[in-house]
């Protein structure tokens, strides 16, 4: 039973990693850039929702606060691309990566200044409630995380592979010039992707904060989500989820059964192993150049 309990909580935290990784993959799939601030986006999303709904702050109804927070994050994402990244259009990805690193620092500072550096929990209607299934106690928060993550991944997967807009997003990442030749408004599409990833970050943040406390440095979780995205194969949405779950499971298991200090290293060890044996990740999307 203990083992199953461990698995369930591992799955839940894996889902959070997966959600953050989903944000990376969205941006990467559609713009080929890596958003190092995705973890901080998540943190900000959590704080916005928390600021709207917690009794210490505005005290809005939770079900009202969640969509508002998601919309605010989407707008922020859009504005970041529109106001900052658009000046960098066509520049190398390294520059964009560095921009996002810098933004992460600024977001962390902003969050600390606005909401303090103390860890806070999001007050959710399902906090502290659980059901017991044959000896296994499942928290409502854990169930919510798993269900929402699965639905979101599925929805995004369908969006990217079935809809015209989703296809256009992929097209504009693979060849910006050709996408323009097709009449795809590449810049606006990129802004939309940033909005989308902002919304996903908000969802991830809300779920994360409902499960435990959050503070401005929570964004550093993003680094583990990187490992998740890379394990899954950086351009693959289901890959991000699978990668997140792998990391979520490895962590508690290696902490329980491994040597002390090993659980810190294990996720990255797995990442390196995956990259060595499958350089493009589990759901590899790379292709050999044809000459």
């Amino acid at each position, binding site marked *: 039973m203990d083992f199953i309990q461990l698995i369930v909580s591992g799955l839940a935290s894996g889902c959070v990693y997966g959600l953050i990784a989903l944000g990376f993959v969205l941006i990467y799939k559609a713009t080929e850039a890596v958003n190092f601030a995705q973890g901080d986006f998540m943190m900000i999303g959590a704080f916005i929702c928390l600021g709207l709904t917690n009794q210490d702050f505005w005290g809005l109804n939770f079900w009202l606060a969640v969509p508002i927070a998601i919309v605010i994050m989407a707008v922020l994402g859009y504005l970041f691309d529109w106001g900052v990244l658009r000046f960098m259009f066509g520049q190398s990805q390294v520059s964009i990566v560095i921009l996002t690193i810098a933004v992460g620092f600024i977001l962390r500072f902003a969050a600390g200044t606005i909401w303090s550096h103390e860890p806070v929990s999001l007050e959710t209607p399902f906090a502290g409630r659980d059901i017991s299934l044959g000896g296994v106690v499942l928290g409502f928060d854990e169930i919510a995380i798993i269900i929402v993550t699965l639905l979101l991944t599925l929805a995004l997967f369908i969006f990217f592979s079935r809809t015209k807009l989703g296809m*256009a997003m*992929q097209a504009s990442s693979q060849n910006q*010039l050709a996408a*323009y030749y*097709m*009449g795809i408004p590449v810049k606006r599409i990129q802004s939309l992707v940033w909005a989308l990833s902002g919304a996903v970050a908000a969802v991830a943040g809300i779920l994360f904060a409902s499960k435990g406390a959050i503070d401005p440095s929570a964004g550093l979780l993003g680094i583990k989500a990187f490992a998740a995205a890379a394990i899954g194969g950086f351009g693959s949405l289901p890959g991000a989820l699978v990668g997140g779950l792998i990391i979520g499971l490895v962590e508690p298991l290696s902490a329980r059964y491994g040597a002390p200090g090993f659980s810190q290293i294990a996720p990255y060890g797995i990442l390196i192993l995956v990259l060595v044996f499958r350089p493009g990740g589990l759901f590899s999307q790379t*292709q050999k150049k044809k000459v």
Partner: protein
Amino acid sequence: MSTPSTNVVLRIDNLESYYGPIMAIRGVSLEVREGQIVTVLGANGAGKTTLLKTISGVMDPEKGTVKLQGEEIQGSEPNQVVARGMVHVPEGREIFPLMTVAENIAMGAYTRSDKQAIDEDTELVYSYFPILKERRMQAAGTLSGGQQQMLAIGRGLMARPRIMLLDEPSLGLSPLLTEEIFGIIQRLNAEQKVTMMLVEQNAAVALSIANYGYVMELGRIVMADDAATLAASKDVQEFYLGISQEENQRGQRRWKQRKTWR
């Protein structure tokens, strides 16, 4: 519309364009009339590709105007130009390598929403290039060079443009396919009334299907005339068609005959 041949679709005035500090086009003026096939000839590096890119908004001009059906479009985003009915089919390999052939072709119709007509056009493209139909589930990046060129052209057709800019459609294609592609261009022009602006190294074929031609050298237009007149001109024959007037001496080729416009 009673006299379509006098209707100017595309008019370029005194266009200048730079690659960094290098002036690639130096004051080009030309016009394309509705229903025409206009070809631009010139050696490599003459600025033909840059000209097309500047027209379609992929590059920003420094000076001058580009008018599409009377409206100035210079310096606008390429997607806005496409929305106005002008499609640029680029040279080389500007495809989406990780998407399938079918998805690439579907992207060609991005600006359209008439699903039934899109399906018909897709079938039309497949009928032009059966090999693409055969390979439609294959990632486009794994096609051979010539097949990618076919894909680029087929995809360009999907936008149902009023005017097409074609940059070296025959690049890397077999003689048979080259012939077929020019047949398709002629048919589109005759049947669908698509106006064409064609840049092509294969000057003989280009002139044979074009109504009007321009010759570019070092970023300038140096000759402009009816295609037939150009084809008969001594300089064009010598430098673009490879026909020499007298028995050729190899020495003459290496120490080039001076072009009269230089």
